[in-house]
């Protein structure tokens, strides 16, 4: 009785540690084995962010880091220009946020402004290598 209570509340068993470690290492293995997934994700990510700010596509970097209990994706997406907010009403602007002109010389420090998107991945439930369509060139439309 005391024994299992201790186990329930006490430190992790070695089998749950094993499960946790395996889950992480396999996610890392799968990503390493599927570079096209990363390329596609990068493209989609940049497409979404480009709707709001102008980013430097060439300098986008994506990394994966193992954290304590999760795999984290770190995306460094240099922003070249931010549109001046239009109107104070907070109404959502639907038009594509392509800046009309190249950014003025004043904002000539693009790659220093690199906010990191840090997304910890959820454990995938039924992931399997559904073959991704072969990666297309990362062109914006």
């Amino acid at each position, binding site marked *: 009785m005391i024994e*299992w209570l201790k*186990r*329930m509340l006490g430190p992790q*068993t*070695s*089998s*749950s540690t*094993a*499960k946790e*470690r*395996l*889950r992480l*290492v*396999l996610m890392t*293995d*799968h990503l390493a*084995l599927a570079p096209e997934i990363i390329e596609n994700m990068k493209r989609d990510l940049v497409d979404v962010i480009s709707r709001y700010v102008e980013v430097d596509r060439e300098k986008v970097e994506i990394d994966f880091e193992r954290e304590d209990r999760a795999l984290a994706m770190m995306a460094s997406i240099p922003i070249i220009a931010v549109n001046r907010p239009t109107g104070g009403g907070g109404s959502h602007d639907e038009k594509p946020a392509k800046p009309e002109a190249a950014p003025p010389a004043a904002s000539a420090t693009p790659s220093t402004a690199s906010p990191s998107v840090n997304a910890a991945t959820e454990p995938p439930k*039924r*992931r*399997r*290598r559904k*073959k991704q369509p072969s990666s297309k060139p990362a062109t914006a439309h």
Partner: protein
Amino acid sequence: MSGRRIVITSGKGGVGKTTTTANLGAALAKRGARVILVDADIGLRNLDLVLGLEKRIVFDVVEVAEGRCQLRQALIKDKRFESLSILPAAQTRDKDAITEQQFAAIVEQAAEQADYVLIDCPAGIEAGFRNAIAGASEAIVVTTPEVSAIRDADRVVGKLNDKKIPIRLIVNRLRPAMVKSGDMLSVDDVCEILSVELLGIVPDDEEIIDTTNRGEPIVLDESAKLRTIYEKIARRMEGEVVPFTNFDSQGLFGRLFGALKAG
């Protein structure tokens, strides 16, 4: 109609591929199926030894590939069964002594005269592995409940998925007491991590070593505890729904009530 061609593979060595091939083959043959076992571990011939047929080898799979003998001349019949034979690996040749195409052709030819062709795959994911899966239409992945074996099994699962070969899993060398105390991954954990359908659970048992020493399939030993385990797996392979008894406990509930099961 041509028989099923099933590769038994694992990635990591020493997890029980050869033991599984021998004992499942024997279990299927005992049920009346025509079975041919192919040893694909070129250079490290073992299947003949595990089944106690090592003294009767004349030709091997590489000699069949090279056309130096007919398939039927190389097949060694296991006289303890109605219809079980093995095609031995070459012991003194390299893995590249045979090509994928040659291997697939031999497996196909074997399947014309058998209900089951079980292919005992070498460890690794290189040429030997590619040969062994070349002629297969199904796969059984064998793993033990250990991190390194599972990681390697996952690589193999990925490769088989790429080839669209359907997979089922055997968890070998399970120690229920350790699972119960939280010191070994449970079968549910392993299946969840690998997302593969379960075919069987084989406990870690000295009976394996004892019967292997004597070159005797477990299913012929009426007193062996593991006999029914392999028989159940064979029935599942034949399409029967055989429930898994409550063997490994899982999660809080399992740990509290820790029922023992086998299957």
